[in-house]
């Protein structure tokens, strides 16, 4: 006996196996990200008044990445539609763009990460706080390009306290109380930012690997069993759309609001 409904649909459920499988998997993904979102909510409402960061991320870059993912979503669905009408070349083209988008997304994301890891908040022993990008660090002093602030709050709501201009600030090591970059340990906002976007980026990479495989070596299946191949493209596409969907929420809650 062979396993039934690997390609054609079961009459009473109207599904082929993998379709049921992927939706179940996505259901669990919803719960995974759901838990992280509820963590986000609790950390945010639990933060002391005025100490939840606003405007810390690069909105233009975030917007571009949003557009990139949306584009990849439509090319994904178009790639599948092309297979449905037997246009293999168009499929190749569309999913080629999808892969390119994935690459751009990960590239931009890495740049944003890099930017955060080189961004420092320096607490001086006299109580002042300097904030900016690290230019140079030696045994005796640290140079950043940024600004001094009086109150920590000024560093939090950047919608209200826009940073005007950058000066080069050199601080002697012995004046420094604490030096911390904007990595995950900086505060709970950075923690949830890195965790959410990191997990999301892993999904992007995983999805891109699968789609890349189906686009490249995996596409040989098209000649042998076109229906099965089309199904695979549909399944991987569903996953890809889900990844896009998660980003649709991540973008506003992390970048904008």
């Amino acid at each position, binding site marked *: *006996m*062979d*396993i*039934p*409904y*690997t390609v054609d649909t*079961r009459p009473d*459920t109207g*599904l*082929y*196996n*993998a379709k*049921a*499988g992927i939706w*179940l*998997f996505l*259901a*669990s*993904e*919803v*719960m*995974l*990200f*759901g*838990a*992280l979102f509820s*963590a986000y909510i*609790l*950390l945010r409402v*639990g*933060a002391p008044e005025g*100490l939840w960061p606003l405007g810390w991320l690069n909105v233009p870059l975030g917007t571009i990445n949003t557009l990139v993912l949306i584009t990849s979503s439509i090319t994904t669905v178009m790639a599948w539609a092309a297979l449905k009408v037997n246009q293999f070349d168009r499929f190749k083209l569309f999913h080629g763009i999808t892969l390119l988008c994935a690459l751009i997304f990960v590239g931009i994301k890495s740049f944003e990460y890099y930017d955060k890891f080189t961004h420092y908040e320096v607490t001086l022993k006299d109580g002042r706080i300097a904030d900016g990008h690290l230019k140079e660090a030696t045994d005796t002093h640290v140079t950043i390009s940024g600004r001094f602030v009086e109150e920590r709050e000024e560093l939090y709501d950047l919608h209200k306290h826009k940073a005007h201009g950058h000066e080069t600030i050199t601080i002697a090591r012995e004046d420094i109380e604490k030096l911390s970059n904007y*990595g*995950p*340990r*900086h*505060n*709970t906002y*950075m*923690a*949830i930012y*890195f*965790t959410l976007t990191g*997990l999301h980026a892993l999904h992007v990479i995983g999805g891109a690997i699968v789609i890349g495989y189906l686009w490249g070596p995996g596409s040989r299946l098209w000649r042998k069993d076109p229906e099965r191949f089309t199904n695979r493209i549909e399944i991987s596409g569903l996953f890809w759309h889900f990844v896009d969907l998660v980003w649709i929420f991540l973008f506003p809650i992390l970048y904008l609001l």
Partner: protein
Amino acid sequence: MQATTHAIPHTGVHEAHHSDAGFWRTYIFSTDHKVIGIQYGLTSLTFLLIGFCLMLVMRWQIAHPGEPVPVIGGLLEAVLGDVAAKGVMSNELYNSFGAMHGTIMIFLGVVPLAFAAFGNYVVPLMIGAPDMAFPRINMASYHVFVLGGLVMLVSFFIPGGAAQAGWTSYSPLATSIATDGQTFWLIGMVLLITSSLLGAVNFIATIIQLRAPGMTWMRLPFFVWAQFVTAFLLLLAFPPLEAAGIMQLMDKVAGTSFFLPTGLAIGGDLANVSGGGSPLLWQHLFWFLGHPEVYVLILPAMGIVAEVISNNTRKPIWGYKSLVYSALAIGFLSFIVWAHHMYLTGMGTKVATFFQTTTMIISIPSVIILTCMFISLWGGSIRFNTPMLFVLAFLPMFGIGGLTGLPLGFSYSDIHLHDTYYVIAHFHYIVAPGTIFALFAGIYYWFPKMTGRKMNEFWGRVHFWLSFIFMNLVFQPMFAQGMSGMLRRMADGGAMYSATANARAGAGVIGGLTDYIMSLHTYILWAAVGLALAQIPFIVNLFWSLRNGPKVKSDNPWRSTTLEWQTPTPPPHGNFAEPPRVYRGPYEYSVPGHPTDYTPQNVPEK
């Protein structure tokens, strides 16, 4: 998945299921659900044994704090080093063993055995499917599981030892103990969760898609229903714990403060963390899994019980529909009761009332299921074989476990009982003489299908009676200890705490524990040793019967109605010689007018 792997089944009958593939493909990288089921079974039984041994050492320490562990004390010191200096268990080692006992028993023992092993072997056969829907994912699930288990085991031997914060791994304790064991624990958990998710997707897809023609939802054996609901629980409850695990991992390795509050002090010093996190968040996410998890532990067991009861009373199970709806109700409700584990976390009365109410409501379907099982016995001509004995013991044992849950479910009485041995006794009554007995029943019951031989009946009975007696001797005293206030997770069994409290009893503090309550530790220790000895007949029997057990004379030795018995023995790759078709419900026993006292599901209507 390609057609080539299905060359054999078409020739049908008694063929060994994988004669042409090599050793690796047959036993290690097999995609056959039956092989995977057996792999899961053997692995999880091994883990159960390991978890049990950890507990034995802990029981020694509780009963004789500070005395060298007999027999294996030297070994412990040699293998684990200073934490077991001179063969004496240190407090750290006690905590490690405690945490790992819980973790191993639940995530590496009972769940894989109940869900993955039995589910894999039996479900596709019962629904008349050739295999699981995604055989390769099935294999991957097992391999990830083994990997997770290895990570857990390895953590015992790293400097600092295994995780020490209990199976519940509460933050901030979990991440502030200076051992990488916690990191191992978290990585291990993420792997185990991933494995469970793969399994759950596979099970649900299989049950939805691969039911044989005629196998409508209401003709599914109750065991399949139980596994179906279980799979949903795993699918939707585990991801939040995975998320929480990732966050705690970040706390541990990336220095974040998801679960670390502002102003956290460790060892008297302010911790070098940003703070701002919430320890309660961990508890919420943990118990969001944790409570459904306890139903993951019990539902498959109930499924096995239903099958064995109807088969051995030769009667349809009583109230099939109520069973199904109750299982569904349990599945549904188990997601909204979790905070009854958190009454004492400073929870307000409104939330407590909500969770208390849902907790009381969820006990209704559990009672319905138990009642149906009891009524099923009524008027049956019961065959008292080994599986049936275990199942008969399951019923009252689960009853005790469930009823003792009610006082815990009321926030008011839980104030007294929370974190005491009463809780330990409560859930062990459900899991040990409950679930594990049902699993034993399942092993004795399906062994003939897997091997073509029965297990030895006499030693099966010896195993049952000894286990039954010692089980109760181990856990019954814990109710008394808990109600008199003995806290759980104390490395010396409460000796020091009790002595201090007694010394100050005059000052109006709550008194310590009486000598009598403390002396119960010794009884429990020896009962536990007895319980260990009682497993020897089982282990020997299991392997001995593989070659020497009495051969079954037909494919259906128990004369059962469900489809797994209508295959060749053991079932070949692809399971059924030809696709089965189902004509009737799962429990047509003793139907008046039928030629035999059982009518298998695939027998056509006249």
